């Protein structure tokens, strides 16, 4: 039966009715007929290179490739005739003559399956492991399906050296079969166009053009090429010899606010690798470098805290976890509410955050709980929250025709959003980007407005005024941007992290909001913290109770008290995290997933609960081992408000436990009631009593309550300091966005350090020449308010006259940006 949209075909003597326009390969796959392929991949356009999928089509003069030939009505296809199998074998032999094949064709292979001997004369019975893709190799599968036992051609080894200099993955093109999948995925799926074929024939080289390194050519290190490689030519450094995964569990990435869905590969109870999930809401089968390559290194690092320990006379002593909990309980019991504070990371799960604030409010009778997000966002926090209230799903990018990007660089972090933006551009959408530095969008944007770091606010407010048709003289680029936005049918604003540390970030956000209101667009803020939304809704701030209601209103406190069945202390404090720098020293400070913000001791007794020991400052008194996000069950809320599930993929190392379990144990030890949770679902049920939305899990977005507002420090000065007429640079200091529980990812994931220069002074090459410094020199950066030395890293992304530092630890810098003098340290 053939309708307008279907055709009737016969494959191997079986009649099928399939959709019109399908290729023979897809039609066969739909009907469970196997046709071997090497270069075909479900997400890529057909290439027709490997010739494995040749099939016989009645009436055709020659064999046709199933992957490229569309089905036609009445087609009679044979996929497994003797002649075709012979052709396939012969073609495969040609491939194997130049692909080292000792792992594929081995006289011991039958025995190997049973006894795992090696062909080396050694007393081991582990089988050989010549290739990182052993047992995962697609070539291997096709070879065994074709029953090739021997090849006629002598093996010719290409003898290329393995390329190891780029971070994250090694490239051994001796194993390459030129299927072109990596090139196509880079061009068609990622739209990054980094990889290409250069040269031709046997001397074909795969890689960036003109012999550049991946780093130089704009590679985002997304690992899409590694994922699609059918052989061991591209292999992930950190997972090269781990073998086949035993299990795969889906979870949510916690390394930024996008909230990508990950498939975590497990072997020997360890998360050995992460690959993307084809998720319809967030990442659509893509990941950024952090999600793809950094997660396993971050959670499996040898420095992980596995045991509790205490400091005694300057020595760190390992102690049983029960003892540590008893010590903590003892200290906390004796601590008056006003002398206690808890700092909790917005990287923690909702369940952890909820239990933490319940612990503070019901056990400690305090409201002293805060999150480092307060420091990260500074006095622009409330305005940033206003943007978050206007948020929309990331998939809106697909429907927008004009996208305004503010301070957004997506090369390494958030590159999944970059892919969606490039797809939008390919569809015809126009991008306007405002960014002082050269960045990932600069190349593809319709308009790149590049104000100096000191003129960001001016540019944005001029744009905002132009949209409100206040006639002011503005640059032609801004006028063009205003025209584009005015004409847009479906505009969208994306807010990056670039402008957050600026002293005038509050005004920048206000102007952004004004633009959004004028043109009627939604805003997608892309927070660096994976659960910022959750930290607000769970009430992990002194001002906020669960549900995001204010804690200084007696009605609210009563409501919460009734649910918990105990009284919540009156809100009598104006403490918040900023007081750590200026206020009085506390008695007990409990850090959950946070590093001590200053070098001096922040309390008489510091409890530090995290996945890595702190590297700076006074050592804490007690260290508790916590579980990383791959080791816990719970939920995160991403930047767009989507509630997403995290799942335990591997057990935490040693005595480490999820934060809420440690907190509950301490609470119980202190004799508190209401902390007898058996699992995370019970906590979710309790959260549901405050927030309806948690009654039943689904991934629909939750919106921040409109009223949410925090009490911030008085306005910071946004004036530039007076200059003394000498040559100066304008320094902007950023807080690193690439952290998990206060731990810089660059410290734990080997390759990431090569990508992001943290704690160095970034300076334009011509400026560096002017002051006579080269890459790696130590320089002294000084102003009236600031003096510190840094190593120099050259970066031609910066404008002449501006320099920047990305600091791994938060240190106040005000006003930001401000002029500094730079000189070589030894001069």
């Amino acid at each position, binding site marked *: 039966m053939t309708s307008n949209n279907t055709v009737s075909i016969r494959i191997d003597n079986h009649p099928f009715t399939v959709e019109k326009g399908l290729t023979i390969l897809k039609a066969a796959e739909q009907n469970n007929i196997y046709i071997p392929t090497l270069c075909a991949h479900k997400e890529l356009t057909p290439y027709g290179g*490997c*010739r494995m999928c040749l099939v016989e089509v009645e009436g055709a*003069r020659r064999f046709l490739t199933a992957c490229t*030939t569309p089905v036609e009505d009445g087609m009679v296809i044979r996929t497994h005739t003797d002649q075709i199998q012979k*052709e396939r074998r012969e073609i495969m032999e*040609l491939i194997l003559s130049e692909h080292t094949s000792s792992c594929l064709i081995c006289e011991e292979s039958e025995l190997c399956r049973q006894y795992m001997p090696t062909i080396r004369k050694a007393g081991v019975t582990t089988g050989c492991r010549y290739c990182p893709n052993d047992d995962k190799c697609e070539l291997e599968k096709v070879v065994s399906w074709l029953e090739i036992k021997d090849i006629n051609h002598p093996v010719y080894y290409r003898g290329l050296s393995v390329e190891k200099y780029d971070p994250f993955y090694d490239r051994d093109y001796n194993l390459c079969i030129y299927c072109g999948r990596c090139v196509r995925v880079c061009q068609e799926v990622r739209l990054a166009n980094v990889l290409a*074929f250069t040269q*031709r*024939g046997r001397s074909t080289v795969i890689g960036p053009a003109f012999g550049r390194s991946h780093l130089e050519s704009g590679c985002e290190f997304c690992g899409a090429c590694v994922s699609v490689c059918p052989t061991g030519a591209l292999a992930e450094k950190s997972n090269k010899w781990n073998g086949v995964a035993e299990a795969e569990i889906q979870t949510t990435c916690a390394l930024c606010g996008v909230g990508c869905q990950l498939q975590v590969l497990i072997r020997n109870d360890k998360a050995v690798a992460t690959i993307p999930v084809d998720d319809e809401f967030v990442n659509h089968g893509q990941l950024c470098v952090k999600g793809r390559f950094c997660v396993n290194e971050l959670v499996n690092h040898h420095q992980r805290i596995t045991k509790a320990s205490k400091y005694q006379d300057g020595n760190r002593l390992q102690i049983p976890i029960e003892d540590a909990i008893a010590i903590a309980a003892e200290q906390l019991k004796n601590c008056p509410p006003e002398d206690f504070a808890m700092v909790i990371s917005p990287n923690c799960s909702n369940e952890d955050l909820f239990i933490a604030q319940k612990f503070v409010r019901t056990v400690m009778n305090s409201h002293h709980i805060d999150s480092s997000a307060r420091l990260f966002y500074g006095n622009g926090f409330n305005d940033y929250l206003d943007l978050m209230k206007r948020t929309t799903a990331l998939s809106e990018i697909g429907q927008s025709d004009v996208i305004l990007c503010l301070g957004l660089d997506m090369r390494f972090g958030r590159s999944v959003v970059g892919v969606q933006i490039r797809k939008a551009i390919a569809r015809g959408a126009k991008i306007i980007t405002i960014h002082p530095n050269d960045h990932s969008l600069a190349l593809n944007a319709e308009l790149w407005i590049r104000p100096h770091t000191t003129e960001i606010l001016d540019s944005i407010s001029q744009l905002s005024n132009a949209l409100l048709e206040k006639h002011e003289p503005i640059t032609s680029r801004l006028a063009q941007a205003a025209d584009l936005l005015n004409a847009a049918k479906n505009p969208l604003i994306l807010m990056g992290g670039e402008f957050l540390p600026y002293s005038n970030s509050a005004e920048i956000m206000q102007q952004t909001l004004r633009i959004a209101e004028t043109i009627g667009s939604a805003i997608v803020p892309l927070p660096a913290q994976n659960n910022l939304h959750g930290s607000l809704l769970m009430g992990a701030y002194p001002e906020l109770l669960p549900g995001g209601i204010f804690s200084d209103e007696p009605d609210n406190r009563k409501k919460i008290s009734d649910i918990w069945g105990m009284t919540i202390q009156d809100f009598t404090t104006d403490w918040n995290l900023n007081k750590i720098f200026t206020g009085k020293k506390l008695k007990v400070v409990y850090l959950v997933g946070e590093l001590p913000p200053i070098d001096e001791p922040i309390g008489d007794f510091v409890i530090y609960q995290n996945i890595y020991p702190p590297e700076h400052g006074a050592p804490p008194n007690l260290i508790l081992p916590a579980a990383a996000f791959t080791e816990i069950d719970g939920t995160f809320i991403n930047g767009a408000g989507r509630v997403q599930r995290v799942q335990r993929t591997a057990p935490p190392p040693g005595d480490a436990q999820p934060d809420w379990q440690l907190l509950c144990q301490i609470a119980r030890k202190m004799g508190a009631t209401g902390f007898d949770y058996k699992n995370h679902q019970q906590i979710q049920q309790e959260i549901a009593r405050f927030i309806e939305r948690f009654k039943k899990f689904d991934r629909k977005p939750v919106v921040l309550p409109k009223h949410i507002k925090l009490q911030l420090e008085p306005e910071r000065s946004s004036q530039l300091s007076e200059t003394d007429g000498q040559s100066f640079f304008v320094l902007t200091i950023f807080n690193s966005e690439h952290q998990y529980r206060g731990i810089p990812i660059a410290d734990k994931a080997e390759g990431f350090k090569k990508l992001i220069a943290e704690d160095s002074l970034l300076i334009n090459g011509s400026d560096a020449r002017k002051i006579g410094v080269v890459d790696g020199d130590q320089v002294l950066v000084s102003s009236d308010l600031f003096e510190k030395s840094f190593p120099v890293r050259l970066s031609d992304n910066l404008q002449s006259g501006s320099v920047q530092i990305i600091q791994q630890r938060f240190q106040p810098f005000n006003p930001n940006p401000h002029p500094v003098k730079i000189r070589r340290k030894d001069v």
Partner: protein
Amino acid sequence: MANQNILLNFDRNGANHTLENYLKRKGYSTLSEKIPNMKPEQVLDEVKKSGIRGRGGAGFPAGIKWSFLPKDSDKPVYLICNGDEGEPGTFKDRVILEENPHMLIEGMILAAYAINAKHCYIYIRGEYGFALQRVQQAVDEAYRAGYLGKKLTGANYSCDITVHKGAGAYVVGDETGLMNSIEGKKGQTRNKPPFPAVEGLYQCPTIINNVETLASVPWIIDHGGAAYHSIGTEKSSGTKLLSISGHVRKPGVYEVDLGYPFMDFLNKDCGGVIGNRKLKAVIPGGSSTPVLRPEDCEKITIDYESIAEAGSSLGSGAILIIAEGSCMVKTLEVLTHFYHHESCGQCTPCREGTGWLHKIVKRIEAGQGKMEDLDLLTSITKHIAFHTICPLGDAACGPVDSFVKKFKDEFIEHIKTGGCPFGGKFVRFQERV
């Protein structure tokens, strides 16, 4: 029977490439006199009637190719002139490009009119520096004189021509590879379908023809398709440019009527084999066509059918004459090296197979061959030919199969004696005066 000069209608010693000279030869008169009274369909009809077959090598009738364009498409149509003359031994288009570029331009304008193309490309291989220069000069002259551009002199339509320089790949001589090259992509051929007439350059309907085919169009329109069809044989009409080289006394480019006896051409027009040697072999249509032994050549006439009957192909009309005393194994080694070097690397059989063909022939020539190698050669060609996207794989196999089949004794002699009986070198026969 005297051969007509349709394409080489000029004195080979003059400055024929200029517009002035071309106008003296009644150039652009077809465009200015005939076209105002003709509809595009009529032009197409005349070309169909002429029966002219594609001169690039495949021999597909040009008029029929043009009529494959979709009628209901709203996309622009492109016309491309394939001047990527890369087949070893072929240099006939070069004469047109260098000496008679205006005839090509006029032909393209007429073809563009017939298929409603507004933009045309002339793609010339990068190695043809002089031809590029001449064609560009001619295009500039034509623009200045108003034959190209917005509104053409004497006709009511517009046509633009862009001259595109190739970057040096044999495989780009294939239609779709050439389109990729114009688009700035790597010179690799595309999978078909879609065919170029439906989805070609920049995903638009595209017609691509050889230089010689397009240069013949002005004569066809001027004299009528029937007149062109009356030249040559029934199935192979018109004249053909032949580029003859190798061990021949007067190598060069000749224009003959199709159906002309081959031996007459060799002995009368070209002065016979050099040094009065005996003919050993003929490659009749460019290096990828199967080789012929002298006895095969006795009766053939120069047209598509006759040569096909003898087991080879007229191809691009590049005739290579090989005289007695030269080594066929060495010749094959050179040819296999060429195909191995030019394989683009997309299809496995061609990328790997041509390498093996070359390696095996090379070792036979070096005297290290084995008797099994001959079977191995034919078995490899069996797996390459017709199993690749573009015809490069097939082209590489044509000579290998035919050399091994027709000169088997010589291969066996190499293997048995463990060396080359001819000294392992190319022989350059000098004419003794």
